[in-house]
């Protein structure tokens, strides 16, 4: 009997513990969604532990993907070029390694080209090593962290446009929230000069590949095909980054606003290499263009500036000479007066370098 009671008490405690755990986990969902609680230390620890596994599997995956791509290309060529099949296969086999490097080289060249063009940004190149499995959120893991200068809320781009921002930077890896994520919101503008309508781009839960530009007034000048760029409001994303293109416009349920469905400029399904903007500054202004000159009276601006400089120097030299001569005359007259012993009149130099009597 006592065994039965003890067993019953024991199972009751287990049940109570289970219910408590369930309640804690359930509450933590809502607390974390409102940022009331943060788990930065365990987050970073788990990321640090996972990074070698993710790096390894990512590398294997890229190799397999490349192999799969190569095999499919080879089959295609086999169908189209039956007569040249053996030769093509031989060349493909020989170029397998070279092609892989070439593809990587091409991607990195494009990224480097962007880096050279975008002089207002300091960029850190990164590779995607992991993707979030949850279907309603869009988060990727990159192989750069605080050790490489990456910090939270830094913008992430490719040469094609905006990718997202660093959600959480670990030591060697970072989580990047893509602009496709429903929780992401990017301050944007329509690039067309006569429009410049502001809106917010956020991910669409129901159509993950097409983000939406929301909060557009119903009478605003927004057209299909308009390019959307970041506005720079909010401080996370620098101004002028390409986000995508308006592909469709719908009226919002409320009736006062409308939203635009967008084609993102970046192909997120084929995203492999990205760049993190670790520092950004304003673009220096363009030098002023010289004004249009009347035909027949053209002058060389550089030569004119040189002549002006020379003439200014000559005027200054002449002024100095005059001043020296006046000083000498003054000294001579003072000496003469001292020798005569009758200082009836006094002379003093005028402020302008002349002599006042």
């Amino acid at each position, binding site marked *: 009997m006592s065994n039965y009671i003890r067993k019953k008490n024991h199972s009751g405690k*287990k049940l109570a513990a*289970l219910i408590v*755990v*369930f309640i804690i*986990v*359930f*509450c*933590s*969902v*809502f607390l*974390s*969604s409102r940022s009331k*609680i943060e*788990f930065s230390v*365990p*987050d970073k*620890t*788990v*990321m640090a*532990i*996972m990074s070698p*596994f*993710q790096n*390894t*599997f*990512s590398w*294997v*995956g890229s190799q*397999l*993907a490349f192999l799969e791509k190569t095999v499919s290309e080879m089959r295609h060529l086999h169908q189209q070029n039956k007569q040249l099949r053996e030769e093509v296969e031989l060349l493909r086999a020989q170029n397998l390694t070279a092609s892989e490097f070439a593809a990587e080289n091409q991607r990195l060249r494009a990224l480097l080209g962007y880096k050279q063009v975008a002089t207002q940004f300091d960029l850190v190149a990164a590779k995607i*090593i*992991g*993707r*979030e*499995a*949850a*279907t*309603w*959120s*869009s*988060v990727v*893991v990159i192989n750069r962290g605080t050790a490489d200068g990456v910090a939270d809320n830094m913008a992430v781009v490719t040469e094609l446009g905006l990718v997202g921002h660093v*959600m*959480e930077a670990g030591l060697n890896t970072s*989580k990047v*929230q893509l602009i496709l*994520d*429903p929780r992401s919101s990017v301050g944007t503008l329509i690039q067309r000069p006569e429009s410049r309508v502001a809106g917010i781009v956020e991910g669409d*839960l*129901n*159509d*993950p*590949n097409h983000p939406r530009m929301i909060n557009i007034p119903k009478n605003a000048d927004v057209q299909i095909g308009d390019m959307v760029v970041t506005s720079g409001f909010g401080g996370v994303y620098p101004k002028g980054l390409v986000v995508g293109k308006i592909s469709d416009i719908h009226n919002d349920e409320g009736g006062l606003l409308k939203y635009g469905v967008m084609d993102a400029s970046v192909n997120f*399904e084929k995203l492999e290499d990205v760049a993190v903007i670790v520092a950004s500054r304003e673009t220096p202004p363009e030098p002023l263009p010289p004004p249009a000159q009347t035909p027949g009276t053209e002058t060389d601006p550089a030569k004119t500036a040189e002549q002006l400089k020379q003439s200014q120097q000559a005027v200054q030299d002449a002024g100095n000479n005059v001043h020296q001569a006046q000083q000498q005359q003054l000294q001579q007259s003072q000496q003469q007066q001292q020798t005569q012993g009758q200082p009836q009149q006094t002379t003093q130099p005028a402020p302008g370098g002349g002599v006042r009597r």
Partner: protein
Amino acid sequence: MKVFFSGLLLLLVMYGLQTSLLTFLDYNGVSVNLMLLVTVSVAFLHGWKAGVAAGLLTGLLQDFSSGSFFGCATFSYMTIGLFFGRFSKHVFKEQMFFPVLSAPMAAAIHFCIMSAFLFMLGMKPDLIQSVRTILIPFVLYQLVFSWFVHKVVKSFGNFAAEQMQIKTGGLK
């Protein structure tokens, strides 16, 4: 200790696979969820307590390493571990049919729990479209991989049992 670290390593390898290599096989952003399959298999093989524990461990691993709302995956996996663990006593351990067949059901339950959380958090997913674009490919992926994962979990369970036997034999 050896069993614990082996299990942890297996879990990390599987999660690494899920988040990197297997994403290459995704369909419209949907790919297989090995953590869910592990939870279901453990629940079937070792009962509801082990199922809840496995759900807690795999859920925390996913919640900590991913950028999702903390606790969603943990709550969902624990519930699934508890639910399928209840059938443990009624299922013959050696057969594969029920664990494999339950994988799509677990996927559907997971989808329902996540959708409920999204609604409670103020998001408005289109359920009909989500079923078409997310749930159906997700269920198919889970069905394809469930046999393999169940086999791995069962092998690990046998390995753990052997180790325990050796340990208890040594103590005698």
